[in-house]
């Protein structure tokens, strides 16, 4: 595997090139094709990497089309899917990450290239003594380590691709959640406006009645107080709606000058039963795939270390270091040493231990994926049950209370102020119902993320 040091350089270079053929070329898509495919199969939506002015132009046009509302001149975001699509082609952070893929590919290609021969010329004086050194050099170390470095870079590149695909899924989920937050906040705002209107009407009516002498100043002041409260709630709702819309717009890479649907999407009629949620997670999740890839790499490295126990080709520990909260650190180190005292037994043992570590990490990733999938599924079920209950039971019940109150008002059994007070209470239920509906859709997006993509519906149990 490693060319013998004593062989002629030319032969070594040829052998190395033959060994590395095919993996040391820059690809036309910079490795993006695989990211795109992973996203398409998992999300049903493809990202775009805007590398050229033409690509940027095409993406802008796509965004424009997605925001086009035939009925209206102002741009309109029609659905969560559209929001995700826009983020995938327009989110600047994501574009920056895509560029990182180029960097990784360049590294990979670089690692597979033989170093250029170098020529050096040195001229020095030492008193009257003039020294001129001329040399022709070829990086021996690079040549020696080239095959190993290429493999490592290849795996590193693979990991960058995986983490990038994972980033795409995460941005999609974030966008989806931000979309539901923004629509729900806006829906809540619309309702709060109605409530404030009613409170204003009650206040105006009470003020008039107090002026005419029909009610006391106390009752009038109470209505004024409720009016003030409603105004405050309206202000809070307005602020919340603006905040959520800004968050969404930021994910879309746009200014928040587009309109949103008036209402959240309706709840599904029923949740399809899926009986292989955990299996789906294991198949689709990219962190599981990354752990698996890493383990395969470690296996190869272990073999390498056994074969080249005298050459410290790589420090396995630095291959992939993950720490929570920090970006994944990838890298390798190659050194050549003279085997006078150490014959490499310890190094092999270390490689074996690191391989074992990788195996456990994969097991942990699998366990984690299963648990997350189960939990996200459970939470979506619960959110659905709650949202349905609001929609099927509590909202109709609130409506019935309102209807009965109107009947009582008709019979001069209660006053208009009771009706308005009930309307205020009704508003609280409506807002809670909107939030429950929103939480279902957010849980739905979380489930997609936990499964590493959309759940595919299984058979009914």
């Amino acid at each position, binding site marked *: 595997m490693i060319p013998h040091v004593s062989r002629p350089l030319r032969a070594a270079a040829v052998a190395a090139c033959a060994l590395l053929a095919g993996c040391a070329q820059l690809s036309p898509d910079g490795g993006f094709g695989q990211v795109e495919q992973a996203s398409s199969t998992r999300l049903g939506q493809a990202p775009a990497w805007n590398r050229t002015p033409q690509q940027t132009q095409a993406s802008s046009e796509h965004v424009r089309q997605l925001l086009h509302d035939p009925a209206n001149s102002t741009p309109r975001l029609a659905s969560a899917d559209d929001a995700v699509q826009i983020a995938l082609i327009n989110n600047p952070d994501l574009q920056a990450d895509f560029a990182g893929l180029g960097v990784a590919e360049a590294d990979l290609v670089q690692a597979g290239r033989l170093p250029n021969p170098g020529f050096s010329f040195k001229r020095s004086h030492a008193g009257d003594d003039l020294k001129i050194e001329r040399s022709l050099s070829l990086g021996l170390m690079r040549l020696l380590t080239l095959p190993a470095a290429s493999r490592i870079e290849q795996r590193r590149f693979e990991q960058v691709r995986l983490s990038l695909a994972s980033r795409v899924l995460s941005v999609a989920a974030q966008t989806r959640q931000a979309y539901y937050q923004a629509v729900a906040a806006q829906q809540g705002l619309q309702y709060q406006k109605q409530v404030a*209107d009613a409170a204003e009407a009650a206040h105006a009516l009470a003020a008039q009645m107090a002026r005419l002498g029909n009610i006391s100043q106390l009752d009038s002041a109470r209505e004024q107080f409720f009016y003030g409260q409603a105004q405050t709630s309206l202000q809070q709702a307005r602020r919340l709606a603006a905040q959520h819309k800004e968050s969404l717009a930021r994910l879309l890479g746009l200014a928040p000058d587009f309109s949103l649907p008036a209402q959240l999407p309706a709840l599904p009629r029923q949740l399809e039963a899926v009986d292989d949620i955990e299996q789906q997670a294991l198949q689709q999740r990219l962190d599981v795939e990354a752990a698996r890839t890493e383990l395969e790499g470690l296996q190869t490295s272990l073999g390498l270390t056994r074969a080249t126990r005298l050459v410290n080709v790589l420090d396995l520990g630095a291959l992939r270091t993950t720490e929570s909260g920090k970006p994944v650190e990838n890298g390798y180190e190659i050194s050549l040493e003279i085997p006078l005292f150490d014959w490499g037994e310890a190094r092999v043992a270390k490689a074996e231990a690191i391989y074992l570590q990788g195996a456990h990490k994969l097991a942990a990733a699998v366990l984690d994926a299963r648990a997350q999938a189960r939990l996200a599924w459970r939470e979506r079920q619960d959110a659905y049950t709650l949202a349905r209950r609001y929609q099927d039971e509590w909202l109709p019940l609130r409506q019935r209370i309102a209807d009965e109150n109107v*009947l009582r008002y008709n019979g001069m*059994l209660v*006053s208009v102020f009771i009706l308005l007070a009930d309307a205020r209470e009704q508003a609280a239920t409506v807002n809670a119902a909107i939030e429950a509906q929103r939480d279902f859709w957010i849980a739905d997006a979380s489930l997609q993320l936990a499964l590493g993509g959309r759940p595919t519906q299984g058979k009914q149990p």
Partner: protein
Amino acid sequence: MSTPDKQRRSFLQGAALAVTAGAVSRAGAAALPEAPLQASPATQPPLHPANGRPYQPVVTLNGWSLPWRMNNGVKEFHLVAEPVVREIAPGMKARLWGYNGQSPGPTIEVVEGDRVRIFVTNKLPEATSVHWHGQRLPNGMDGVSGLTQPAIPPGKTYVYEFTARRAGTFMYHPHADEMVQMAMGMMGFWVTHPKDPGFMRVDRDFVFLMNAYDIAPGASVPKVSTMLDFNLWTWNSRAFPGIDPLVVRQNDRVRIRVGNLTMTNHPLHLHGHEFSVTGTDGGWVPPAARWPEVTTDIAVGQMRAIEFDATEEGDWALHCHKAHHTMNAMGHDLPTMIGVDQSKVLDKITRLIPDYMAMGDKGGSMGEMEMPLPENTLPMMTGRGPYGPIEMGGMFSTVKVRKQLARDDYRDPGWYRAPAGTVARPWNGPAPSAARAPDRDDGKPTLEVVKPGMQGGHQGHH
């Protein structure tokens, strides 16, 4: 439903058909007299005595008299205390407690000196007793549970026996958990006729009890813990327009006997005639002591008999003069909307409450408005007359005086047709100039009273 037709039919069928047997088991029937049941809330024809001493029977408004059997010279009645459903007025039924299928229970009519035996079967879920209100009787027959007798347990039958010593107007009601049992409608009328049928003889003798319920709109069982704030003011557990008219022949001598088992007094007012109070709780009022009245106040727990000659033809109102007692269920905590212009806020309110309709800005009159109400709830003011809405509910009825009615004919003759030129009419001529008070110029400063909310120089001053 008591449509006029149906009322008339059940009326013609008479007590014999409307009354059905069967409340008590056959085994017991050998010893107990029949406990007849009444299913109709319509006024039943007078029950002329088939045996025993003769008397001129009474007519119970929206009620009936209890048949009896003679047993060795003793008049035997059988009351069954039980849950009943009473139609308060068409469109509203109340779940009450009563006797023999109705609340109030049937009127018991006996003659002064009669030996009376009354079997009382308790089909209520709790113990009861019957107190014979106003009677002179042996102490142990007075029906005060705990004091004069053990209460009648559920499922048991007790017997009361005494001689009706004094002619007059009486009532019966429980004296066991009476707050609950009377709030649930346990009561009935009792008339002891004079031994001499010619004594103070009248042509028509009407009886009813005043009672009150607190039934939440949309509910049907009274709130038994209500002390004073009742929302249904009724006669014999009926509210106008569910109260039948008191039909009389012109120039009939009419007696109306009323007992008050509500928690407040009721000034009973008759239109078009003066009457005399001829009977009180204690008996008959000697002619020299009678007061001419058009309104007589009937206090809590009292009975009054009033009499008059129905000389004036027409439909004459008879009602409690407490204005809120001639209304059905209404809110007691409503702001007055008179003069309040809702037009500016209407739009905002209807956005949140689509079915909202501005009301009351011109007064309380519901007029011709017909709006959906909670189920089993009577409109606040209701009842239509020949000229439009009467806007009355609760303790209101009419005395319908007509020529040429048969002696025992109590059928509703319909609305009075006033002779031409005898009805108030619109004035279409020029408006007469209003009379003015003479100018006051006595040098004294004029006192100005400024009320809050009055328009003028103090606008905006609160």
